[in-house]
């Protein structure tokens, strides 16, 4: 997309070092888990079942441990507020991606330091971080510990169900990944979002009053 000439661009420091490290670590872990997980499920043969299985378990446990650090980080820094869902401007954002983006309209909710997620992202990332990923980790952990179920008093559980939940989660994450990989090209330039996630700085439109969008949102007409 071409940068909108009428807008002044400013460089802001959006993502801290830990945030960027966590993003890339998690993305690597998830991609490895998807590749080895679908092989373990029998979709294809790439590394061989045993290797895929071993790597999947190892990376899965690694993810679980690393995720605990992320949870610690998000609560101690107060960054959890970035994930609070809102309906304000939600329809505008949806409308932007369905319509405005093709006309070169400016994004209705540009990023800024303490509101780096637009309402749609808030909802998606909240579902991801608070629901889909934990469900995937929990079902994975249960799957992994299958042989201890009866010792833990979980003998009533069905491996078929746990495996099905884990597989469904895998498909959901793969779908997310595809959409996510595409969405990072929708910044003011194709590489802007990616650059921000690598070095932390992103060029965003500096529009007046934007800092108070949460209050003033309805007064503006971005189209």
């Amino acid at each position: 997309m071409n940068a909108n000439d009428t807008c002044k661009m400013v460089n802001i420091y959006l993502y801290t070092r830990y945030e960027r490290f966590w993003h890339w670590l998690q993305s690597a872990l998830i991609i490895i888990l998807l590749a080895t997980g679908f092989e373990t499920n029998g979709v294809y043969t790439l590394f061989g079942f045993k290797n895929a299985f071993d790597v999947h378990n190892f990376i899965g446990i690694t993810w679980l441990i690393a995720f605990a650090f992320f949870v610690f980080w998000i609560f101690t820094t107060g960054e959890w507020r970035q994930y609070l869902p809102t309906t304000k401007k939600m329809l505008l954002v949806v409308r932007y991606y369905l319509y405005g983006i093709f006309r070169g309209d400016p994004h209705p909710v540009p990023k800024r330091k303490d509101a780096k997620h637009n309402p749609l992202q808030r909802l998606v990332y909240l579902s991801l971080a608070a629901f889909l990923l934990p469900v995937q980790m929990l079902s994975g952990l249960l799957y992994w510990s299958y042989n201890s179920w009866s010792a833990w008093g979980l003998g009533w559980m069905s491996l078929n169900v746990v495996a099905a939940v884990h597989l469904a989660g895998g498909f959901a994450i793969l779908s997310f990944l595809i959409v996510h990989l595409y969405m990072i090209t929708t910044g003011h330039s194709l590489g802007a979002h990616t650059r921000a996630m690598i070095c932390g700085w992103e060029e965003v439109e500096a529009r007046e009053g934007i800092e108070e969008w949460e209050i003033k949102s309805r007064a503006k007409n971005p189209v």
Partner: protein
Amino acid sequence: MKRLKIAGNILLALWMLGFYVHPLSASPGTADGAQAPGRGMAQQATKGAKRWITADHTKHEALKQPFSSGPEVTKACLSCHSEAATQIHKTIHWTWVDPASPKDKPMGKGALTVNNYCVSIHGNEPRCTSCHIGYGWKDKTFDFSDVSKVDCLVCHEQTGTYKKHPAMAGNPAKEPVVFPGDGQKYLPPEWNQVAQSVGRPTRENCGVCHFYGGGGDMVKHGDLDSSMTKPNKALDVHMGIDGKNFDCTRCHTTAAHQVAGRIYSTPAATGRTTLAQDDLTPRITCESCHTATPHKPGVKANDHTDKVACQTCHISEFARALPTKMRWDWSTAGQKKDGKPYKEKGPLGPPVYDTQKGNFTWEKNVRPQYFWYSGRIDAVSFKDPIDPTKPVALNWPVGRPDDPNARIAPFKVHTGKQPYDTVNKTMLVPHLFGPPDSDAYWAKYDWKIALESGMKKAGLAFSGQFDFVETSYVFPTTHMVAPKEKSVSCNECHTRDNSRMANIQGVYLPGRDGNKVIEILGWAAVLGSFAGVLLHALGRAVSSRRKEG
């Protein structure tokens, strides 16, 4: 100072990583020298087994007297070992009847068991009982309570020269005679020599019958044949003469002549006891010596032992040295060449056609079939009704996925085609072996006469109407344990494509099993996402070009 701190951090990180990675590196096949605990346990349990005895049988006067028959030798044995024969009389080796089977339907070779080899011993005793540990079981009149009829020598003689004649009801030849069945000359034993040679049974002793079941070498078990007399380690890690060199009785431990092992519906062992828990437990199961978690800590195979028998992974193929018979079709028997019975050699060596017996199929390096197995094998008797509209399982492994004692175990499945009564819907006993003027099939080649004679000798009813039906018969595969490098690999079972576990139900097998609904919905979501972003990208490309244009 700062540089030192960074270096320290790196070292700490490496140390933690190493600590963390360690459990994974302990997978089988790693060259780290340490061996699996189950192997160590078994080596401790079996090392230093120097067996010793306090008798030299060549010095016993009782064994120096002149002998002219087996029972005379037995009496001499019993003059010291006074209880040996009465012990033998209680074993299935003597009765050929499962002591645990119901009295109204006794099972065993000596009772109502049906197989798909020579089917039954009834009427065929003189031939079949050449593998009985007794002398003279030629028909129903044999006296099972006669202590002198026990053949001590066949299990205990160590010269290797003692041979029972194949068709003299368990007796050795009285004078040199050629058996037409194999063209070999059978000599009367040097009685004093064989009697004075006695010792504990070796592979050779057990093998003279158990390697030659079903009328010849390689016929029956698939994991027991003459190649197991002197196997190498590659064929059997325990019995290999270049390895542990175990005799059969090393695992088939024996108490009062009762040899440990499965007897039809009675499992070889009901518990999962190791020698560490009970030093007198029979060593008949793998776990007796190797424990239930024999592999290195963290190795997934330890998690399999609750559902998968050791043999399943450790015997990937049976009949690895010699071929084994996989099919016997009696329905084609009786064809002659130039009016004479004939045999036709097959590509693996043994015959694929024999006028007396019909068509055979032989196979080598056979991949077993797998079933849930609790150690019991149940069977059809000659009194049980059968359904001839589909293949009749003459015996089958008993076991259910939810039975904690059942595990997935490997089997040889021998198929066949054999006579059944089309009116009474029962399996039939053919009288096969007999002199030329008898009613035996191998005398007159007339099925009806042979079946009437066989059923009469077995004391069973026959309508006179018969046909041939497909049958199957299973043997547990438990010998020929291969070196660990030859174990079945994960992906031979955990695969959607020709899995060894293809017919195993009642367990979710990752890699083989999935969830059709979730897979369809999942791929729809993935493809939908892909199509969506593709269309969106196309829209952006078109609109931006239009603006530029």
